[in-house]
């Protein structure tokens, strides 16, 4: 039998939720551990096998100079690098600092600001190194994660659609909350993958999976504005966990300046 692929999980600025998704795949966890060599995964095990690794899963965004250097090292160690979650793919919620003065943030929280070493921005991994594949979401969908592992094992493409949340809403016959209730929903510009939980739970999609391909948030925001939604609400809606993703960023800036 071929050598088991070596898998490593790395953490940057994040909530740990995405790597937890692997442990949350209760039905598959032991099978995964049997099929791949989980060589480095601090959240789950003490054993740390040195690189190089066949696959590296990277959670979190780059917010310190030390981390900016560390991701370079990790890239060298990993043959196939996958970013998992909104932090790693778009900068995460902590990228909200990109619109503010970090020093102001620090002064408010810490008594000894001189000890806080942080960059002015929170940036996605792909701003620093080449990324081979992205799993979106805040948090990622554990089924997509398991499928990703399976696809790496079997040498196939992961099944990750790039279309809008709406596609699955309609497949599941969920009645559109935007059209039927006038709720400002990000579904039409957000990539599917979450299992359309929000509209199914009678609320707006708030964009966990980031912009879909060919996303057109300008048009959507324009329509919501025209139907009476306050500007601030729309700006905030785009400024969540994927605030720094290009399409959302540009639209939120445009709407803010209106």
């Amino acid at each position, binding site marked *: 039998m071929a050598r088991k692929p070596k898998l490593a999980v790395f953490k940057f600025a994040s909530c740990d939720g995405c790597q937890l998704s692997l442990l949350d795949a209760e039905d598959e966890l032991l099978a995964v551990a049997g099929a791949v060599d989980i060589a480095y995964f601090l959240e789950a095990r003490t054993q740390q096998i040195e690189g190089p690794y066949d696959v590296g899963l990277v959670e979190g965004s780059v917010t310190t100079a030390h981390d900016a250097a560390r991701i370079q090292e990790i890239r060298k160690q990993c043959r196939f690098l996958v970013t998992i979650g909104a932090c790693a793919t778009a900068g995460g919620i902590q990228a909200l600092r990109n619109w503010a003065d970090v020093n102001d943030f620090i002064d408010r929280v810490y008594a000894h600001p001189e000890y806080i070493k942080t960059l002015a921005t929170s940036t996605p991994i792909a701003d620093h190194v080449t990324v081979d594949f992205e799993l979106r979401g805040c948090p990622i969908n554990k089924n997509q994660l398991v499928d990703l*592992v399976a696809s790496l094992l079997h040498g196939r493409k992961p099944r990750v659609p790039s279309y809008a949340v709406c596609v699955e809403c309609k*497949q599941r016959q969920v009645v*559109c909350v935007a*059209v039927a209730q*006038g709720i400002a929903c990000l579904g039409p510009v957000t990539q599917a993958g979450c299992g359309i939980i929000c509209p199914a739970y009678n609320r707006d999609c708030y964009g966990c999976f980031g912009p879909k391909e060919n996303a057109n948030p300008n048009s959507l925001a324009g329509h919501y504005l025209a139907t009476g939604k306050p500007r601030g609400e729309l700006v905030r809606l785009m400024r969540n966990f994927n605030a720094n993703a290009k399409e959302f960023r540009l639209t939120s800036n445009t709407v803010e300046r209106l």
Partner: protein
Amino acid sequence: EELPIGYIDRQDGGLYRLEKSDGAGYFDYVVGPHSLKSFLFPPRETLLESIRQNGGWQMTAPPTEVTPLAIIGVRSCDLHALAVQDKVFLGGPYVDPGYKARREKLFVVAVNCRRASATCFCHSMKTGPAVQGNFDLALTELGEHFLVEVGSEKGGDVAGGLDWAAASAEQVAQGRGVSEMLEAELQSRETKPRSNEGGPRERFMDTTNIHDLLLGNLEHPRWAEVAERCLACANCTSVCPTCFCVSVEDVSDLSGDNVRRERAWDSCFTMEHSYTNTGVIRKTTAARYRQWLTHKLATWIDQYGTSGCVGCGRCITWCPVGIDITEEVAAIRATQTDGA
């Protein structure tokens, strides 16, 4: 699902509200978010199951057992849509077994509309408002009573088994009057001045020579213009009762030994739809919108001998930004670049 009895719907581009109305009867809401489509052509369906077995694959199609289904309150536009989907799934060289099985067990109770919403334009598509066949029973609401018309043997058997009074000629005429009045009202939309003080625009579509109009204007600037607004979100195609595009994908377990081949509703608005190994064919939203509109209203006629649009107006209502098929056609007609 519960019927919203006593409610009417208010529909416009990107807007749907059910509102209680005093005068409303049992069926005075018109077309809702769902059509017959999802019952006969479910959004997700398993086509094939494969299990790895001693070096080969055991491939089986899941049985298509179906429980008989009766659907009450189907409108004329949706009956025409049913006929269109019948052509797609049953009328070609290949027959879709799942659709066929479900179609055979379907019992349709149609309803003649008494009112139309602003988004309805069945009269333009010659698909309503009066039901014209393809049903088992058809109801017309007449104040306290329902007028029942039998449309098939199955319908006759059901009606025969019930203790219903025979309708008088007067009642039959009254029933016909309901549809005629509505039809006249719809027709009058075409001559009414366009802006009716603030209320939703009442739709109609000029279909004169529409096939050549659209295919003769494949490079019209309107495609790029609508793409500025269109989200490529696929809501329109999903709610459309005739759209039938699907993606077919394998779902397998971690070992890869148990595989289900599934089809799911897809749309010409997704990137995956026109993906090929050498590139995505319809990369831009403009190209996708053009594909949708030209297929729906023009090449559908080449393929199936009828328009793909039955004038139900769902794509207008359920488009999150209210893009309006009738308006897009009108815009192209008004500024055609080609002599078509």
